[in-house]
């Protein structure tokens, strides 16, 4: 089997620290590295720190699991809209399926995402969790 490690480390820092791409011409931000702006076509892209808080834009509870998640149990997947408008796809954790709502404020949670095989490398990256502390709650 082909080692997946290079594929993982290429993107590891971005997934660990929530780094994104920002077009200096039009201001469009994206999760993941891009060398051409998907909106305006500019090649002037810089790597930026994305906000670590946002809100749930849409969500679903996944019951039919893909093979890689065998035995994991039902889980919440969401599109999260960060404070600056950047959207990304992430699991929502520390939250019961019946409690998740569109508009619910969430924050970055660094977690394990998977494992290549029983003895293979472990993948880490972002998930999001509800913001509990009042001090962190986004107004409006």
């Amino acid at each position, binding site marked *: 089997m082909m080692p997946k490690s290079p594929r993982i480390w290429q993107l590891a820092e971005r997934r660990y620290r929530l780094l994104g791409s920002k077009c200096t011409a039009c201001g469009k931000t994206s999760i993941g590295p891009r060398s051409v702006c998907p909106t305006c076509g500019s090649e002037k892209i810089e790597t930026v720190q994305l906000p670590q808080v946002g809100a749930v834009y*849409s969500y679903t509870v*996944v019951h039919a*699991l893909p093979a890689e998640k065998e035995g994991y149990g039902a889980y919440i997947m969401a599109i999260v809209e960060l404070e600056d408008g950047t959207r990304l*796809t*992430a699991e929502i954790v520390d939250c019961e399926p019946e409690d998740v709502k569109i508009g619910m404020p969430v924050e970055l949670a660094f977690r394990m995402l998977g494992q290549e095989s029983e003895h293979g490398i472990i993948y880490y990256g*972002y998930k999001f969790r509800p913001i509990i502390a009042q001090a962190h709650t986004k107004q409006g």
Partner: protein
Amino acid sequence: MREVALVGVGMTKFGERWDKQLRDLFVEAGNEALKDANMGRDEVQALFVGNFSAGSFVGQEHVAPLLADYLSLKSKPAFRVESACASSGMAFNLACMAIASGMYDIVMVGGVEKMTDISAPEATSVHTKAMDAEWESFFGLTLPAAFALIARRHFVQYGTKPEQLAMVSVKNHRNATKNPLAQFQFEITVERVLASPIVSDPLHVLDCSPVTDGAAAVVLCSADIAKKYTDTPIYVLGLGVASDSIALHDRPDITTLNAVVKASRQAYNMAKIEPKDVDVAELHDSFTIAEIVSYEDLGFCEKGKGGLMIQEGETEIGGRIPVNPSGGLKARGNPIGATGIAQVVEIVKQLRGEAGKRQVSGAEIGMTQNIGGSASTCVIHVFGRQKR
């Protein structure tokens, strides 16, 4: 550009085809299309095949020459096209361009998928490959989950209800009872859909198209020689293809499928028609929400009124625009790579008046809409009984 005509169609029974291999299914559909066209296999100049992931499903890549070999097309050019669920819709578009350009006069276009050799969780994993591997699937998104995210937003933005989603499935199952090649030839009820296990809420098992084995094929030729093969050629009036972001989260409003909007306008313009001129349509109901959103984005109804359109019966056989008389992906079955051509086969049968108990009476203009992934690809074809 030269006009393109369809002169032969063929399709296998869709379902769990334990009895057949990938190549057997394709050869069966291809032979039937040739017979339907009263054509010898030596007349075919090229083969275009839609296939999503034979490598994952049956361990076979490089399927184009394999299928040409088993169809005895000898050393003819054979092209494979992959665009997830839109693979054979895209193959059809390319084949039309190949004839329109004058490169070839006669080609076969087909699609095939053999999906039941692996387990359901494995099949779910294969489906996820149609999305962004690094920024969606890696984080746990599945294809049904992507459409569930769309459905949830549609509920909130437009008041669409789970019952309305279920009605799509009920309609398509009812139509499939009249299609002897359909995978599921039985009726269901809204209550049964809503009581079926949840795949990715709000989508239930009976909101989702199944895992299917099957193949479909058609023979295309330059319109000026079509009458040599059949008295009832069906003409290609319009073509449209568009793409959208690979990741759903990169779209400003996930309740609008921009590729569907764009591809359909291209096809309507080329065919010089408006949505109201469509007499029968085969749409991509991979998930019930997809059919509802497609009504809107194809211009069959106002944005946000898709739920109402199904509820009022406008897309039933006999309604204002009958949709998926074949049973659609939901009930005819969805062998991924074959789906786009299965849609074409149905429209040809409808326009020829050969659709039996599911015939839409007096159908003159038909269309197909085939989407890939979360509608990162959309392919539209418009067909007519008369030339443009």
